[in-house]
């Protein structure tokens, strides 16, 4: 299977209402969300969504409430069926699967973590964690062993026999994560998993997720309303507004070239020093003679680079690639300039 597009979301439209098919043509003709609601009594949740998601990457969908992000993620395991369009995962169109096929798909290919944890309150941490394996019919000893491994991995050692209501929010979501990981599915859906957590715990969980992603080779679809979180986690970010994708790209692109004023408003709140990488703003050169002792790497954020350069008492740093070859130079002045640069956006 090509690494390029493991998951393809093709022309998805989702309309809620008494008879969604009847207004599909109006949507195709470009009727607005508010007009559709007031005149035709249907809610346009998603409009012409097209995106390819690469294997073993973190794809983030960011948007505010009502943007359709939670509706979109539920298309990927068919908890919500599209009004029109297809979702193709690993070459199979999951929108045309029978109930039995989709049940099998959910059991083996995809796991989900929920904003409100959605743990079973009558089950212990251990039996919550092996819930997916139990549904699949894995025998008790094996599923307990697997579950214990992941309980340990998310740092809940010793809490196996607690009930969810005896745990804090952060710990409950660790159980939610352990439950998803125990299923060992190649795709992990995360619907605002950290939104309900305190900021510090949220950072811990984000770090853990990044770490897990490196170890595990999973394709992660992550929903958030927080751009900082999106930039921290996402290999690729799609921004949703009113059911449409209004910009898609990696963090650098979105921060440096916001598509419109709506996105730039978000971006202006972001700490650019922690997002922009040296390779983005360095002056390219291959003249080895320029190499000095302030050495930074192309993937380093400019905030880290500034630290390295100033600590070595210089104004300019050398950007060396992983083979130790000089690829460019970066000055403290450039760094400061790009942190404070007023944001320009392409349209409007």
């Amino acid at each position, binding site marked *: 299977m090509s690494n390029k597009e493991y998951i393809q979301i093709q022309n998805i439209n989702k309309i809620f209402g008494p008879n969604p098919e009847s207004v599909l043509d109006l949507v195709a003709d470009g009727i607005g969300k508010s007009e559709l609601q007031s005149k035709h009594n249907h809610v346009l949740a998603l409009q012409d969504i097209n995106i390819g998601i690469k294997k073993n990457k973190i794809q983030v969908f960011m948007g505010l409430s009502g943007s359709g992000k939670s509706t979109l993620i539920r298309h990927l*395991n068919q*908890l919500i069926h599209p009004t029109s369009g297809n979702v193709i995962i690993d070459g199979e169109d999951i929108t045309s699967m029978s109930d039995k096929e989709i*049940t*099998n*798909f*959910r*059991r*083996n290919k*995809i*796991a*989900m973590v*929920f904003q*409100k*944890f*959605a*743990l*079973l*309150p*009558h089950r212990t941490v251990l039996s919550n964690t092996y*819930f*997916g394996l*139990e*549904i*699949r019919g894995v025998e008790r000893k094996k599923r307990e062993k697997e579950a214990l491994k992941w309980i340990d991995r998310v740092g809940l050692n010793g809490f196996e026999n607690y*009930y*969810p*209501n005896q745990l804090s*929010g952060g710990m*409950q979501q660790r159980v939610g994560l352990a439950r998803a990981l125990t*299923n060992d599915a190649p795709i992990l*859906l995360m619907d605002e998993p950290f939104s*309900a957590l305190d900021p510090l715990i949220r950072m811990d969980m984000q770090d853990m997720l990044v770490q897990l992603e490196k170890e595990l080779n999973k394709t992660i679809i992550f929903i958030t309303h927080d751009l900082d979180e999106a930039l921290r986690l996402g290999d690729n970010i799609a921004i949703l507004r009113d059911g449409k994708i209004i910009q898609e790209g990696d963090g650098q692109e979105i921060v440096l070239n916001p598509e419109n004023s709506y996105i730039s408003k978000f971006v202006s709140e972001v700490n650019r020093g922690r997002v922009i990488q040296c390779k983005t703003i360095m002056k390219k050169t291959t003249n080895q003679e320029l190499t000095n002792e302030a050495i930074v790497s192309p993937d380093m954020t400019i905030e880290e680079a500034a630290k390295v350069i100033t600590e070595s008492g210089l104004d300019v740093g050398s950007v060396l690639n992983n083979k130790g070859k000089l690829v460019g130079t970066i000055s403290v002045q450039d760094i400061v300039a790009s942190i404070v640069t007023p944001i320009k956006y392409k349209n409007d």
Partner: protein
Amino acid sequence: MSLFNQIPQLPKDTLRAGKKAIDASFKDFSREYGDLIELIFEPVRWLLIKSENFLTDTSWIIILALIASIAWLGSKNIKIVIGSVLTLLLIGYLGMWENTMKTISMTFVAAILAISIGIPIGILMARSNIALRIASPILDVMQTMPSFVYLIPVVMLLGIGKVPGLLAVIIYAIPPIIRLTNLGIRLVNNNVMEAGHAYGASYAQRLTKIQIPLALPTIMAGINQTIMLALSMVVIASMIGVQGLGQPVLQAIQNQFFTLGMMNGFAIVGIAIIFDRVTQAYGKRMQKYQETVDEQ
């Protein structure tokens, strides 16, 4: 002017003829199929007799020990156990042991049957809105119709005795367990159900692993109500020949025996309180470890 004072009414003769016709056809029906229906209920009659014989023929010490251990297993509360034993000892001391055993037997069999019929109906109602719409008005009728009224067709079909009594008790006692099973399942948190769907649980798996365990406290409340209603109806069913504590009460009403009525009345209250406390304590114990998580 006469229309103003007099509500339009069917001519008295027509009405009488209509009632007669319905009665006659029902009588014909029961004459025709009475034996068959009795045959159908034969296993129930057998169960009733076995249960009653067991409770009345076994030594009172064994029965008392049995009830005490059930009370302990249900409530894990020594006060409730001691209260139950003392109540039963007092009942025996005042000469009402045998009638009490007959009443407990009838209540027990009726409650078991009502629960085992009622829970599946409740599950069906929770699954399908059509079933809900069909069952709701029927349950309304069952709960509001004066119990004496449906004693009549039951007696016409099956005569007087244990089985028609049991049928009347079940009809009277089954609505709460149906309603509360349905309610308990419908109240299960949507987030948790969504998790069940997302992990590929089948309907049977969602029912047995999520819905029923989470609905269990509500279902227990239904079981408690059903037992209470069964007990009160067992007393009323003495009018159609059900033996037990109801019969002395009936006798006391007819002859104005104040003390006899009061004593048997209090015996009924006594076993009602035992049933209630044990089932409630059991329900509470089940809830203890599962205060919901979604307050966060």
